[in-house]
Every structure is written in C-alpha cells, then in structure tokens.
C-alpha cells in the first residue's frame, strides 16, 4: 500500500517535471509565435483590403468604359452580357444600372445563376456601392448610375482559412518541440534523476545497501554528464556514509554494552520534567523498578522527600547554566519502600546557551557506606563516652601525679643544688690552689719581714744614726726610686745592666761585691756607668745601698701581703657567693656582670695558662632572677667551653642589651658541636664526657633555671666559633 502510494507520487512527479519542461517550451513557443501570427494576420488583412479596393476600382473603370457606350446607345442586350460577365466574379453579387428616372437592367447572381432581380441581395458581408457613369466626352454629364453589391465574405473566408492554417502549423511545431523536449528531458534528466532520487530515498531510509544497489545498477549513458558525475559522486558518498555508519554502529554497540553492563546506574532524563527516557540494568537493580516502569516516571517520583529539595536547587542551577554538573548524595525510595543511599552525578547534555534537552545521571549505590558511616558515628559516640570516662579516671590519676610532681620539683631543686655542689667539688682543687698561692706568698713575705726586722732593722737604724746627711739622702733616694720604678725593666735587661756594671767596676779596678750590684739592680737602679762607679767607689755608699735594699724588701713584702690577701679574699668571696643557698620565693634584680665575674674568678686557675679572655661588657640593667641559681648557668656553659677548647684558646664573653633583655654570649674557638648531637645537648643525661667526668645534667639544668626565670638560650656553632647565647629578663 505504502509502496503503491510512493510509486504514484514518483510517477506523478516524473510527469510533472517532464510536463513542466515541455509546457515551458510550449509556452516559450507561444510567446514567440503569437505576436508573429498577429502581425501576419494584420498584414494579410491589409492585402485583402487592397485587393478588394483594386477590384472595386476595376469594376468602376469597366462600368465607365465598357458600360457607358451600351448605356448611351441603350443597347440592353450588350449591357446584359457585360453585366453577366462581371457577375461571373464571385465577389460581385448583383449589378443594377439605372437612370435617375428608371432602372435599365438589374441582374443578380444567385448560386452562379444570373437572374433578373429587383431585390437587393442581403447578407452580413454584402456592401453596396453606387458608381456614376459619365458621358465619355462630357465629364460632368451623368447618364446613369450603376449600383453594385459585392460580397467580401469570400475574401474573408480565404483570410481566415490562411490564418487557421498558420495556427495549425505553429501548433504542430510547438507540440512537436514539446514532445521532443519532454522525451529528451525524461531520458536524459528525469529518469537519471529519478534513479538518484530513489537511491537517495533509500539512503534516507538508512538502507544504504539498497541505495548503493540502485545507483550501481542504473545506466547513465543517456544522462547529462553533470548528472553522471553527480551519480558517481553520490555512489562514492554512499560508500563513505556506509563506512561511517558501520563505525557508528560499532560505537553504538560498544556504548550500548557499556551502558548496559556498567557497574553504575545510568539514566537519561528530560531536562524540564525530569522524566526518564532510558535507563540501564544497574539503574533498575538499584531502584527495584523495571525499565518499562521507569519510562513513565520522573526521578522526582522515586526520590526521598527530604532530599528532593536539595536536588531541585541544583537542577535549577544546571538549567540556568550556572553549573554544568553536580554531585549529590541522596536517597531513592526503592520499589519495596526501603531507602537507598546513592551518590548521583548529573551532567547536562546540551551546550552552554542552547535550550536544555536532557540530563545524564549516573548513580552509585552507597547504602553500605552510609550504613558503615552510621555505625562509625555510633562507635564514635560510644568512644566519646568511653573517653569521657577515661578522662575522669585520668583526672584522678593526674591529681595524684601532680602531687608526685610537686615532690619531684622539690627533689629537682635539690638536684640542681647538688649539681652545683658537684661542680664546686670539681673546682675545689683549683680554687684551693688559688688560695694556697697567696697564702704561700703571705707566709714567705711574713718570714722575710720577720727576718729583716730581726736581723737588719738594727743595722739600718744604726746606719742612719752614724751616716752623714748626704749618705742618708742617697739611702732615701734609692728607696724612693725602687718604689717608683717598680718593674720597669725585664729580667734580661736587668741582667745586661748587671753585667755592664760588673764589667765597669772591673775596668775601674774597684772592688765591688757582686751582691751589691745585684741589690742595686733589685732596687731598680738604672743610671749611667760613670754614676754607678762614683756610687760604689765610696765605702759609706755601700752601707746605704744595703740599708735601702732591706727597706725596699720590707716595702715589697708588705705590698705582696696586701695583694695576696686581696686575691685570696676575692676567691673566698666568689666561693661564698657560689655556694650560697638562699631560697627566694620571688625573683630579685641582680647584677649579672658581677655574677659572671664571680664564676670567672672560680675558674681563674683553670684558665690562666691557656685561655685568653676577651671581655666585652656593655652597661646593663640588673636582671630578674634567683641569684643563687644564676651562676650555675655560667658555670655549666664555661665548663663545657673549657673542655671543648681543651683549656686552650680564646674565650669571648659579651654582655649586651638586646631589646628589653640582657644578652650574655659566651663564645669559644674550640671545635664545632657535631650536627648529630647539636639537638641533644640540652637533653638530660646527654654527655660527651667519659663516665664519671660529667653528670650530663649541666645544660639541662641551665635550661630549667632559664625556664624558671623566663630566660632563653640558644647555641650557634661553626668550626671557628661556638657561642652560647643567654637572654635574661630585666
């Protein structure tokens, strides 16, 4: 039925195209021929009219010339003959010759028969003309009137006949042309086009095989070359399309396989309504509905009410173009009524700016995860309860611990003090030396004073009593000079001088005791050789030198006792300061420079042989601290520094203002602290010293003390210099 209709349509169309073409040719012929026919007809009409006029004129001439003698002679018979002859012409229907008074002859031709007739012929195309007949030599004299009736229907007929013939011939030509045109156009144009068209229709119906067959079978020998080309192009195109289609089918098959076998649910929905167009098997599995059931539903129908609002907001955003896709966790209502948690990813399938068409939604069942999460939450809550319970237990334990810490703190304070005393113990030997040396000097100086007082004082007084004023003056000058010039010469210089004096005495052959020269040198006597010779050449002067020497030794000894006492008391003061145990509950302002110096005094003995101390002290305000603990900081840093330097090198101690703090830097040029232990040096019980040499608590204690008084410490080390910086609050 369908095919038949199609066939009808095709044939109609076919006739239509060929017909249109031929009728166009026909019309074109008509447009060209009709004006020429009209023109021909008009010119024919003129010819006919001229012929008629000539004929009329001929009749008139003959009437005048032939009829005139017969009329004048009144020869009726001849006249009748002449008229009869004239009437043989078809056109002339009737001739009447009459005078003004009466008719002479009236002959009429009826059906080629000449009869006497007195009635004028009647007819549509019959005209009447009256011709006056003049007397031959008297032109103004009319002798009769010849009236003629002539009929132009014959000429008309002839004219129309020729016109009809013309029309007929043109018609035939036009028709033939049309037929040829339509035949040619059918063969060369319509039929090939029809084939092409048919194959295209087949192609349009996606039956590419059929289309290819149709166009392949057809012969285009008669067709226009353009159409031939078109056909072969089309065939090529069909092949290409067929190949493309094949690939598309392949892809489609692949896609379908993916779609159906995907581990996630996939649906395509109408953007505006949410209505489901297509779903895959997994989608059905997740929701519990069949694909058929879902086709008449919207995603909204199966979405859990509480979650719908969230999704509608997102849908609105995607529809407005604000976002391209969204991911949401929501609940569907399974066909069985239970809730299913899914993660849904919705993507739009139209481009920005286009009218929304479809959504693609991918869903994943996350119900298990959600259940696990809930379980986790529950466990969390239980855990929190347990934690709270444990916290209470811990608080109790903490309370106990705090009191233990209190005890520990007390023990720690004791430990710090003990460490301090341990350090002191290590120092004691050196410090003892520092006290013993001055004591030895005092002892020795005391012995010397005692000896001089006992053995020599009498000699000195005696010498003063018996000596001249001059010699007494020499005595007091030598004593003064000794006091003023103390230690201006080195030992080597003194020896040189002594040698010079000795040689001078020998040269001058003066007998001078070596002891006297030595005493003079010890008295810091340093005069020209001549003066020396003068001095020693007088025996009384020798007495003065001896007395002056004894007096100077007394002075020196007393001076030594004073200096040594000062030294010893300084050490003892430092010791006292260091070992003082004052339990202050609050920090007090304290002179840090003094404190550092105290420690340096204690260490003097250990440093005096190999260490050069550079002091760089700024004027600083007192620092806030517990004074009995502060010097422990310096002791520990200094102790480490000295050990690191192996008691040799340069120790630089800087005290400066650093903002509102006082900074004490103790730098030594010993080797750098290795990288691998630099972070451990402040740890308790960390030591690089041999067992028994250090407690490993030193720097830990330093840190504790600094923490307690709000100070801080750091260390910078490199192969040239290692510096401990301490900041103290003021």
């Amino acid at each position, binding site marked *: 039925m369908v095919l038949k209709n199609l066939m009808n349509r095709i044939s109609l169309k076919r006739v239509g195209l060929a017909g249109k073409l031929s009728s166009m040719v026909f019309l074109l012929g008509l447009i060209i021929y009709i004006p020429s026919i009209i023109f021909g007809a008009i010119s024919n009409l003129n010819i006919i009219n001229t012929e008629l006029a000539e004929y009329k004129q001929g009749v008139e001439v003959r009437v005048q010339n032939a009829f005139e003698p017969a009329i004048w002679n009144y020869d009726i018979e001849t006249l009748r003959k002449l008229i009869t002859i004239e009437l043989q012409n078809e056109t002339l229907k009737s001739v009447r010759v009459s005078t003004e008074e009466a008719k002479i002859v009236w002959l009429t031709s009826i059906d080629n028969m000449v009869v006497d007739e007195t009635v004028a012929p009647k007819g549509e195309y019959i005209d009447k003309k009256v011709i006056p007949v003049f007397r031959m030599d008297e032109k103004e004299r009319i002798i009769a009137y010849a009236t003629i009736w002539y009929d132009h229907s014959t000429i008309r007929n002839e004219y129309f006949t020729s016109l009809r013939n013309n029309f007929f011939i043109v018609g035939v030509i036009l028709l033939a042309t049309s037929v040829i045109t339509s035949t040619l156009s059918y063969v060369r144009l319509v039929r090939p086009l029809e084939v092409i068209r048919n194959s295209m229709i087949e192609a349009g119906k996606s039956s590419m095989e059929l289309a290819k067959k149709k166009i392949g079978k057809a012969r285009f020998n008669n067709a226009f070359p353009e159409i031939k080309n078109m056909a072969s192009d089309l065939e090529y195109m069909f092949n290409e399309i067929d190949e493309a289609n094949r690939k598309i089918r392949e892809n489609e098959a692949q896609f379908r396989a993916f779609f159906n076998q995907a581990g996630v649910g996939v649906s395509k929905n109408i953007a505006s309504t949410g209505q489901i167009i297509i779903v895959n098997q997994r989608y059905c599995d997740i929701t519990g509905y069949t694909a058929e059931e879902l086709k008449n539903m919207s995603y909204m129908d199966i979405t859990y009410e509480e979650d719908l609002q969230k999704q509608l907001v997102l849908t609105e955003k995607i529809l407005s173009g604000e976002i391209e896709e969204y991911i949401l966790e929501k609940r569907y209502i399974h066909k069985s009524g239970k809730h299913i948690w899914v993660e849904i990813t919705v993507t739009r399938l139209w481009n920005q700016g286009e009218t929304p068409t479809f959504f693609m939604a991918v869903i994943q069942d996350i119900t298990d995860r959600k259940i696990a999460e809930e379980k986790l939450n529950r466990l969390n809550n239980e855990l929190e309860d347990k934690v709270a319970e444990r916290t209470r237990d811990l608080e109790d334990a903490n309370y106990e611990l705090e009191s233990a810490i209190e005890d520990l703190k007390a023990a720690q304070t004791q430990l710090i003090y003990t460490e301090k005393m341990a350090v002191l113990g290590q120092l004691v030997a050196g410090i003892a030396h520092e006290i013993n040396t001055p004591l030895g000097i005092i002892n020795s100086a005391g012995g010397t004073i005692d000896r001089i007082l006992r053995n020599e004082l009498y000699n000195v007084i005696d010498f003063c009593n018996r000596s001249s004023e001059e010699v007494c003056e020499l005595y007091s000058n030598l004593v003064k000079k000794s006091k003023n010039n103390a230690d201006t010469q080195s*030992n080597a210089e003194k020896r040189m001088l002594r040698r010079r004096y000795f040689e001078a005495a020998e040269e001058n052959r003066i007998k001078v005791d*070596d002891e006297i020269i030595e005493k003079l040198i010890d008295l810091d006597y340093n005069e020209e050789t001549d003066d020396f010779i003068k001095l020693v050449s007088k025996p009384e002067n020798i007495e003065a030198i001896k007395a002056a020497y004894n007096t100077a030794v007394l002075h020196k000894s007393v001076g030594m006792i004073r200096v040594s006492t000062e030294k010893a008391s300084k050490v003892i003061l430092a010791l006292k300061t260091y070992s003082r145990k004052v339990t202050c509950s609050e920090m007090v302002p304290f002179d840090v420079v003094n404190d550092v110096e105290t420690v340096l005094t204690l260490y003097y003995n250990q440093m005096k042989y190999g260490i050069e101390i550079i002091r760089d002290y700024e004027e600083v305000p007192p620092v806030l601290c517990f004074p009995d603990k502060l010097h422990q900081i310096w002791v520990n840093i200094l102790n480490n520094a000295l050990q690191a330097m192996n008691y040799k090198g340069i120790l630089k101690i800087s005290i400066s203002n650093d903002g509102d703090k006082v900074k004490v830097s103790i730098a030594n040029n010993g080797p750098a602290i290795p990288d691998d232990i630099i972070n451990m040096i402040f740890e308790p019980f960390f030591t690089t010293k041999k067992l028994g040499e250090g407690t490993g608590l030193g720097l830990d204690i330093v840190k504790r003390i600094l923490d307690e008084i709000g100070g801080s410490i750091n260390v910078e080390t490199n192969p040239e210099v290692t510096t401990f910086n301490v900041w103290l609050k003021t």
Partner: protein
Amino acid sequence: MSKRSAIICVDDDEMILISLKQELMAHFNGQYRYETALSAEEALQLIDELVADEIYIILIITDWLMPGMNGDEFLMKVNEKYPDIQALIVTGYADILAVSKARHRINLSGVITKPWSSDELIQKVKSVIGCN
C-alpha cells in the same frame, strides 16, 4: 763574674719569684747567684746565657703550671741539653698526681707543694745541693 754557681727560679707569678729569692737569699746569703724568669721560654734563654758565661747552674726551681710551656715540658728540654742540672718543682696540691706521672721522664730531684714552708724549701734545696 765572681759567683760561678746559680740557682734559677721560674714562675709566672712575680711575687712567688720575689718570695723564693728572698727565702734563698736569707738562707744562703751571697753564696749563689739567684736568677729569675717569668716563663719557661725566658728561663731557657737565661740558662743558655749563663752557660755561655761559664756559670754553673746548680738548681732550677720551677712552677708546674705556667702559661705557654709547662714545667714538665720545660724540664724535659733542659734535661735534653744539660742532663746534669738538678730541678725542683713547686706545685699546687692538684697537680701532684700529674707531676709524679711525669717524674720518670725528667731529671726531677723533688717536689715542693704550695704553700711552702720556709724550712721545707730550704731543706729540699739543701738536700739537692748537698747531693751534688
């Protein structure tokens, strides 16, 4: 020079040198020359000078701990060059252990501890000089 024998005292503390010299002078009077040096380096120079002057050095009394060259190192050097020179060491209590460790390496005749008593010093000096 008239005195052909000398006692040399070496210490970095001048007061000690003065004390020592006074003690020795008080006891031995002008019997010997008493030379002093503030360091071991100076003492080595001094020894060379005295030897050049043909002065016989009968004793060196030296401190143990000194800046620069220490007493043991100093005495080792002296011993290398002049094996006959006797030596006494003056030292603080703390150094006695170190001194006794070094004793066999140097020509050491005795140790005097600080603070010394006058009698102890003189007795030790006498015993060394007497031995000679």
